[in-house]
């Protein structure tokens, strides 16, 4: 028992340390940003409310919960203490707890990312299996070319192209937002359809980007599975082709890809800033972009922590899945 859990515990410990280091790093980083934020706020308060500078400065400190005169170590300790009790601080621009923003934004990102990953995965796996099984088909060069082209196009450029062609020119899809003004959020069919309708372009952007790499990965994996004895045995036994493809070929070849799926999820959540900004989609990435642009310290920190944790969880999941599905590989 002890032996079995040991590697996992070690992995977990490393993950925790990584999160901790990343957290410390951003804490220091964010505090190096140019411009004395307290001063800026004090000036604004002074202009808006007509109080003296000193008063305004005190008010700003209170509102920001941040005092530049306090040594950074003390601030750090305070922040960590808050973090342990689940307090991520208050957003400077939105004036609400960072955790509230995250809770509101995360579902949208998870929704779009998961949907696009699943769709691209299914299509990619299908293409990859077909190519591997059929060998000489016209699909092979087409998919290879497609994959290397999409590799050259960053996802936000795909997003922009989709926005211009399907949103602006053809007017097939809405341009921005997560749902339209005249629907009523809640458990009702029109709203859910509307949400899907609005998510279509963002999902398509990610999907188009990922299909190529899934197909190539599946092709490679399936080709190596085809070399295994059990396929030959299955053929020799005269099993139906469909059964061979689904049960033996695809089933076995998919396993290594599942781990990549977890990692891709982490990457896509961490990198959603641009696509969500292009579509004005109110997810994690959209708020991240806004937070950096407005130098919203606490929000940057909170979102950075979130993306890091998602990434680490994704890596951890990948490791665990890998060791589970392939008995030859143990967690190192």
């Amino acid at each position, binding site marked *: 028992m002890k032996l079995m859990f040991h590697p996992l515990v070690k992995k977990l410990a490393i993950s925790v340390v990584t999160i901790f280091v990343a957290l410390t790093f951003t804490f220091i980083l964010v505090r190096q940003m140019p*411009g004395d934020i307290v001063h*800026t706020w004090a*000036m*604004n*308060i002074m202009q*808006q*409310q*007509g109080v003296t500078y000193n008063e305004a400065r005190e008010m700003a400190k209170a509102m920001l919960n941040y005092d530049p005169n306090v040594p950074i170590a003390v601030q750090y300790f305070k922040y960590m203490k808050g973090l342990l009790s689940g307090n991520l601080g208050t957003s400077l*621009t*939105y*004036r*609400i*707890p960072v955790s*509230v*923003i995250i*809770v*509101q934004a995360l*579902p949208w990102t*998870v*929704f779009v990312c*998961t949907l696009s990953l*699943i*769709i691209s995965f*299914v299509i990619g796996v*299908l293409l990859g*299996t*077909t190519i591997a*099984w*059929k*060998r000489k088909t016209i699909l092979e060069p087409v998919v290879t070319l497609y994959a290397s082209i999409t590799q050259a196009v960053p996802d936000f450029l795909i997003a922009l192209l989709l926005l211009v062609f399907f*949103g602006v020119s053809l*007017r097939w899809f*809405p*341009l*921005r*937002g997560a*749902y*339209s*003004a*005249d*629907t*009523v*959020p*809640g*458990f*009702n069919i029109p709203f*859910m359809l509307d*949400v*899907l309708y609005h998510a279509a372009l963002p999902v398509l952007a990610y999907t188009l980007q990922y299909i190529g790499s899934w197909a190539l990965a599946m092709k490679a994996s399936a080709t190596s599975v*085809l070399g295994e004895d059990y396929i030959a045995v299955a053929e020799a036994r005269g099993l139906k*082709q*469909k059964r061979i*493809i*689904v049960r033996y070929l*695809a089933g076995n070849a998919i396993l290594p890809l599942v781990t990549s799926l977890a990692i891709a999820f982490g990457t896509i959540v961490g990198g959603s800033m641009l696509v969500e900004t292009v579509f*004005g989609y*109110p997810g994690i990435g959209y708020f991240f972009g806004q937070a950096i*642009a*407005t*130098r919203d310290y606490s929000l940057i920190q909170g979102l950075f922590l979130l993306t890091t944790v998602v990434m680490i969880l994704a890596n951890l999941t990948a490791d665990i899945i890998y060791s589970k599905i392939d008995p030859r590989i143990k967690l190192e």
Partner: protein
Amino acid sequence: MCLRKPPVKKFTSVIFVFQLLLLSVLPLFIFLLTLPALCTGCHRAAPEAGTFFTAGGWDIPPAYHGNPWAPGGVGVAGGYVYEPLFIYVPLTGEYISRLGASFTESPDHKTLTVKLRKDASWQDGRPFTSKDVMTTFNIGFIASLEIWNNLESIETPGDYDVVFKWKSVSPVNTTMALTERITSPYHIFKKWADNIPDIIRETRIEKQAALEQRGGSLGKISPEKLKEIKKKRLAKEREVREILYKYHPQMPVGTGPFQVTRVTATDMTLEKFKSYWAADSVYIQKIRILRWTSNEVIWSFLMAGEVDAVTPATPYDVAQQIIKKNPGTKMIRSSDLSEFGYIFNCTRPPMSDVNFRRALAHLLDRDMIRKVAYYYSEPVTDYTTGIIKSYRGRWLSPAFLKRLTRYDFDPKKAGEILLNAGYRRDAKGFWLRPDGSKIELEIIAPAGKTDFVLSAEAGSSLMSGFGIRTQVRVIPEELFNTILTERKYDMASWYGPEFVRFAHPLTSYQRFYDKFGFIAAATGFDGKVKGPSGEVIDSRKLVGELGATVDPAKQKEIVEKLAWVTNEYLPFLSIFEKNLMIFVLDKKHVTGWPDASDPLWTTSPSGVEMTYSTIIMKGLLRPARAEEKP
């Protein structure tokens, strides 16, 4: 690879897809669909006919609250929930009755008497009385409402009578009093309001004593005592302000035609206030406000025909596309009562040299900058007087204007001015300062504000093309004001002359030359200069005089002097008079928008929501009927 693949006859991909779909995708898909539903909350009724869609800003809940005085309160809803005594129409000078029924000014302009409407009530059911008006202005005292510079006292001889007594007359007193939104019912703000008359009285005693002391006579109060009183008063004031700011009711309570019923991160819903005094003529049942994030998002709402009225600054071609794609859209242009241009940092060389500023005025092709930055605005290509162009005729005669230097677009002249002032070009054609040092300038603009950024960019490329090396720096919006008032810049793309609210030069010149004026702080130019005939003009003093006279002839005389200083010394260069671009969509959800020429639109600079609410209150806007839809 020794293994041979059997030839494939039919590839059963269809079945394969189906299996995968059924196994993994469908359940997940359904689960995912419910996610957004879970996070956006509970059931609500669908928007019925008679909903008006627009866009605006507010603080995301839970920061949102209904205290109009505390930071983050009310948001865009203010224009629909609250009302002033009257609405001032700048074009005609007319006052439209809201909470006030009528008003009279005393012949010496020292008192203003307002009779209130008797049928108005607050949205929580309590009647509206003169006490609420007084409460609003009293709380305004600790929130530094400008009116208290001139207001002596506010009295309520009857439940529906309010008397404003002025300590000094001013051309804008009446408008200032009548157009303030009445936001604070006594029954809610009692706690604070009851404390404030004391604070007002103490402040007055202090000021009187301070005046006496400055005059040399030792008054009744010793300087030490005065200091002590002041300290005590400030402490009390701070205390009241602090509890005031901490008061966060969920929703605002006003007297206006609509009540806020729901606020989320993406939209806000208001419903008709059933007991509104003009409820019979309000045909709009609901207002749905989308959150304004940036102009380009608003453009896409307009393209999709999702909003009925909204005012984004929009380039020519985008506006044309919007109108083309939604034939029911009309674009109404109404002066924003402000001019837009470059603020010069007059304390930093070479901007500190008036010749350099004049050369720039000739060099910059202002009409071109206007087209690139804000096509639908009125060009200002001749003078920069501090009087916005559409009001020039009321204040400055053609004969007077002839005496001012005209800054027409003329790069050759710009070069001559520079050469005469000792500047020269180096071998590569770049201009050098008279002392031989390089010129490297920066134009700053607030991030995210397209029009300011584009105008800064157009200006910088013109200047660079002329041999004055210039770059654009985009500053985060919340840092922008600070950088300006601390003068850490060369040129800034921002507002200059402003006539908002009172349509009077006073506002504009206070910005330019008052001790607390924003432009004065940003330029470092105090306007104390030699006049046309060698006399000393003290602009700061003149602004003070302008604010204390109701005599039209005297006002005109002062305005001419200030216009002369502004134009000849150029602390600011006007490029255009900004127009609001109000896009209204007719017959989709609502119909009956007034014509573009309707004077009502000129009320929009002080808050377009109040303009919409006035249009709705007057019964002009109605739900679009199904057969009318385009």
